[in-house]
């Protein structure tokens, strides 16, 4: 993988398609927008520049496995002996929600831990399948973030801001790199939640609308029915639609007449692209051509893993098709989503069962197809959970001060762990990695400098990382 692989295709695309997803839309290029700020970066050749990576990329694409609600790191990957030893002990902790130091009852993990792989990393009994892949994973045990409630923290994870309306990280990536496939959107999110910010989590914000994330269904829909909105309809016979297409082509050619401007041309081409998408896109969600053993490896056909298994397999198909930022959501639409076990930690088992095998299947499949080396896989939630019981009950409250995520593939060290929380797993203390830092690191792996990936809006240059963020060099392979 080197830069020269990248450039010609991108430049060709710009010449070939006026408004493909991969390029800067012709309309953006030539139609002076109301806000000069916005169009400044887009003028030729400035617009082309933003499509060239800042440095040689390690990863071409990202698959983000979003664990909505905040899985507990101390019950999954962050092993702390003291929690077992000091179970039920009253100790003082600084509680993120109240911002006060109060006595809290230590709660030991509900599952046993073991070391796995040649690198001997700790995984609890919640994830027996993922445990088989620890030698491919790069753990960050010292995550911390902004926002104690789901809404702000989820928005922060996706956009780098708890309150202000900012573009989603996927949109930033497409803004910076465009899409690999001219017939498909570059940023897709599979069955996203409608809660906790909903579409704002994949929205383009003030970036051009073409970098908006394309939702593939939404949380709660039957997974077999999801697809790109309005890709097809079952109301008009396909043959008739072909005639409509022919009529539109000839009407538009008459109506554009001698006034054919670039704007008008862009509209005409947008239809051509839509026609092509109708041919190409359905394959992303159609798993009919997958072998039985592939389906089984993702847990498809088993009740608990059916939904997430299908989502993960779609993600692999998208990765193959050149979708650059793919988000797979283990999510629902509630205010207390999925992994949010405030009063009933044992429920973590249900969620672990749903994702464990599919995630392992995905890793294995990507690896077998040679996709893992240039695909960055990211597993994690919006925050972690406390090592003590909430209200001295049987659940754990949110913890934005210390938690674990893992990365795999695309240029990160395999079988590695970076950073530590304190001896109870409460606060990240060694090699702390803020969510801004993780954003900077992900962009870096894709060949983008988070300080140079800027967009001028309303008189200011904006970044995904605002004025923060440090690339975590330690995790680079």
């Amino acid at each position, binding site marked *: 993988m080197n830069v020269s692989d990248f450039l010609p295709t991108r430049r060709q695309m710009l010449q070939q398609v006026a*408004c493909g997803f991969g390029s800067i*839309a012709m309309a953006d290029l030539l*139609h*002076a*927008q*109301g*806000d*000069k*700020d916005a169009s400044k970066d887009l003028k030729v050749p400035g617009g082309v520049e933003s499509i060239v990576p800042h440095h040689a990329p390690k990863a071409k694409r990202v698959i983000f496995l979003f664990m909505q609600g905040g899985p507990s790191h101390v019950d999954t990957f962050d092993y702390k002996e003291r929690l077992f030893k000091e179970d039920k002990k009253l100790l003082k902790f600084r509680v993120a929600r109240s911002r006060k130091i109060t006595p809290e009852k230590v709660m030991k993990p509900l599952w046993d831990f073991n070391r796995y792989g040649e690198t001997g990393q700790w995984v609890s009994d919640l994830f027996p399948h993922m445990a088989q892949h620890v030698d491919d994973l790069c753990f960050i045990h010292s995550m911390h973030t902004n926002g104690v409630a789901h*809404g*702000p923290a989820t*928005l922060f994870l996706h956009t780098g801001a*708890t*309150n202000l309306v900012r573009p989603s990280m996927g949109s930033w990536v497409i803004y910076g790199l465009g899409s690999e496939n001219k017939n498909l959107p570059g940023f897709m999110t599979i069955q996203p939640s*409608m809660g906790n*910010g*909903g*579409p704002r989590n994949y929205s383009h914000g*003030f970036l*051009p609308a*073409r970098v908006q994330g394309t939702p593939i269904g939404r949380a709660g829909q039957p997974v077999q029915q999801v697809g*790109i*909105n*309005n890709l097809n*309809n079952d*109301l*008009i016979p396909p043959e*008739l*639609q072909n005639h*409509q297409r*022919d*009529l539109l082509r*000839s*009407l*538009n050619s*008459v*109506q554009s007449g*001698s*006034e054919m*401007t670039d704007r*008008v041309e*862009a509209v*005409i*081409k*947008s*239809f051509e692209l*839509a026609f092509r*998408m109708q041919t190409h896109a359905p394959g992303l969600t159609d798993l009919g051509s997958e072998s039985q053993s592939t389906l089984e490896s993702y847990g498809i056909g088993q009740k608990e893993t059916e939904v997430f298994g299908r989502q993960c397999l779609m993600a692999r198909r998208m990765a193959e098709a050149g979708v650059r930022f793919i988000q797979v959501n283990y999510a629902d*639409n*509630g205010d207390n989503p999925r992994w949010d076990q405030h009063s009933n930690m044992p429920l973590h088992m249900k969620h672990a069962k749903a994702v464990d095998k599919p995630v392992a299947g995905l890793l294995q499949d990507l690896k077998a197809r040679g996709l893992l080396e240039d695909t960055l896989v990211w597993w994690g939630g919006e925050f972690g959970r406390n090592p003590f019981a909430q209200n001295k009950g049987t659940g754990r409250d949110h913890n934005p001060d210390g938690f674990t995520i893992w990365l795999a593939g695309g240029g990160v060290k395999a079988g590695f762990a970076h950073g530590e929380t304190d001896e109870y797993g409460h606060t*990240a*203390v*060694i090699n*702390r990695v*803020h969510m801004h830092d993780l954003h900077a690191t992900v962009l870096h792996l894709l060949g983008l400098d988070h300080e140079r990936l800027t967009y001028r809006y*309303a*008189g*200011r240059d904006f970044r995904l990382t605002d*004025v923060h963020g*440090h690339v975590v060099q330690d995790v680079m392979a």
Partner: protein
Amino acid sequence: MGLGFGSLAKAQNYDHFEKKIRPVLVRECYSCHSQKAKKIKGSLLLDSKEGMLQGGDSGPVLVPGKAGESLLIKALLQKGPKMPPKGPLPKSVIADFQLWIQQGAPDPRTQDSATFKKPKSTSALSIEEGRSFWAFKPLQKTVLPKVKDEAWVQTFIDRYILKSLESKGLEPAPQASRVQLIRRLYFDLIGLPPSTQEVEEFLADTQPGAWERWIDRLLRSKHFGERWGRRWLDVARYADSTGGGRTLTIDEAWRYRDYVVRSFNQNKSYFEFIQEQVAGDLLITEGDSSQKIADALIATGFLLLGPNNYENQDKDLLRMDVVDEQIDTLGRATLAMSLGCARCHDHKFDPIPTSDYYALAGIFRSTKTLTPGNVSGFNKRSLPLPKEQEEKLAALSQNLKNLEAQFKEAQKETKNTQKKLQGLKGKRDVSGILVDDDQATVVGNWTSSTSVAGFVGKRYIHDANEAKGEKSVTFTHKLKEEGLYELLLSYTPGNNRATRVPITIVHAEGHKTTFINQKKNPPINNKYISLGKYRFLADKKAAVTISNKGTSDVVIADSIQFVPLNQKKNPSPKISEAKVAQLEAELKEFKSKEEALKKQVNSLKAKVKKRPVAIAVQDESQTEDWHIHIRGEIRNLGPKVPRGFLTVLPTQKDPISIPQAESGRKQLAHWLVSGSNPLPTRVYVNRVWSHLFGKGLVRTVDNFGVTGEAPSHPELLDALSRWFIENGGSTKALIKLLVRSKIYALSTQGTKIQKELDPQNRLLSHMNLKRLDAEAFRDALLSVSGELDLTMGGPSIDLSKRGKGGKVEYGYQYDEYRRSIYVPVFRNSLYELFDVLDFADPNFSTGLRPETTRSTQALFLMNSPFMIARSKKAGEKILTNTQLKTTEDRIQYIFNRILNRAPSPSELKSIERYLQAASASGEDLEVWAGLCQTLFASLDFRFLK
């Protein structure tokens, strides 16, 4: 102090610095805080003594001798700014720093203070430089330009445009066709297409002044306010929900929307309009009509409509975020300035220092916007009503008060009576030996009945008022114990009962006949009457006979009771049965009275509750100047700055000052519209221009700052601004002036030479091609399909239409037929058609919507159920129209409906070809609907020529 001692001490202390401090600084800090850093963070240098003492944006980092007060130590201890960012240093290292500072922070790294330069953080214009920047200059007086082709000129605007065209050697394009013009005018002024009849009517109107008449007609239309009000709603970032994590609906937002529509329809002065939105509540004067007062309060909803995350747990931060959003929106909307940039540092480009930002922040911090809560809420205020309604309401309230008092009284009476009654009844014990009518010996025909309540057992019997003297009922009983008994007889009273019923008692001493009046209520327990006390023997039958002899009216027989009197266990009840009956009657009355009152109270309450409420601000009880937040951090307070406005803009002769006890919003409103402030007028006139001509004279309509664009015709902009002020800020007059001009009527077709010399058409040699926005597109579609519902105003959100799980914003069942301005605007999930067709992002104040061209739009037009349904309706209209005899009739009809014109020969050919091909693959309706759908997707429907 001896010199030698001093230098010796220093030498020792440098030792500590060199060994323990400098290496750490170099290793941990220099990469961001030294002259050699790639980028100096926080304007802080730690590579010299001067740098450390002077500090950065957050002030000095060390106080020699006082480790505890030094920011450097706080940062190392992770209190306040956490340094180094990677994580805390070992405790022993921090102790070294503490010791060093305690010892006076001796530092050999001195620099010549003349050469030491604090890193400069901004490159903005100074205030003085800013005052000569075009946007901030007072409105300039201009001389009307002279043009070569005087005859061409229609309004003074045309002169400015023609002049610049002539100077470039360009000629204006020819006029657009009248058909194109009427379609253009309808969409521009009311956002709806003309009907086929209206087009015909206009084409037939060739009298002089026709164009003006049609302009006036549309300016008078109530739909004018819907079209132009919606444009202001873009600027006001109007929405029906807050967005953010747990998005809240803003149930009263629609009142603001309707106020905006109303204001445009009333042609309210723009200056009054913006003043109301900043400080309407403070500008109310005595004698204002209730509608005016209500509007003044509703208008301030402008400040409350922002996208804020109300569940944010850090309420200090939330408060400042709300203030920030208010400042930023106000700045963009009225001044086209991005003031939000000055929250963390002086504006990087524009002459807006941070102190100006916090001068405004003081005003908004002194304004109440939020209400407290885990999830915060909006401030709300009650609205006044028209005088007569207000009086009615006052009378109703008084009534309610009175009624409530009466109700309470009635409740009390009921309670008291109930108590008394219970007490009384408690003492009584009617438990004798019962003989019911079904055990009695009956002579003659007695009728069984249950119609009057209060009988004993399962029924009572009566003589049916017949066969008088022939009927009797005898109750007999063999008592087990000899003794004195009170004899009780039960009956159900009534008006048709006999008054003198003979009753004969056979007892130990003989027999006795007594008479009772069965019209009267039985005195005991409403059931019994005492027949007196008699002695009865054991083993000898006691008998009581009711006869109908000598009676007129109905005789009742129900039961009798022998109540033994000579046993101590059963003392005779010492209560007045009359009293009980009386109390019971009273109780009944009180209860019904209470009930009636309750009904009245409730219905009145519902009426009184109808007083409307709006989201609106008010001044805080405590109003005060506020601190600068260093680097925008909410807990990093700098000096306080007096409340005020932007320094760069020209001040009046008498500067406006803000009294301590007021928020300053009133003064801010005055400052915005004061004659000496040129920005709001320039900005607004430019906004109106951009809507009519597709682009502004200043194309960056929301950015008049240094990074924005200079006007293409600065003299024209100022001439229009002055004209606007002279005409009292009348939007309708301004629009009329613009659309009356020659240039508005130009064709959109540019010539080759025009495109060559002026590729972006900044000189307006021809009209810019405008694309229908989301609302106009949708409203036109519904209008063609015949489904458009033109009902105006009212609440946006219908709770019965919310999605699954009770969430309003997600899965909301949108009303498909009302005008688009009444479709709720949800911040987290926009209505699909809006989202696809570039509706304004309600999270930002938007003066000119970005126009994107995406395949998602094409997919929506091709496949969305909405498009297909509208097309089908339009197709039905064709097929059910019996006046359309031929295929060509139908094509002509639908072209006129959708494009307001006839098809060209080549279009006609294409359509005929389509009809032929399609009829093989679809039903008639599908084919015609398919034609409509294709026309909706065609360029001439989506663009205004």
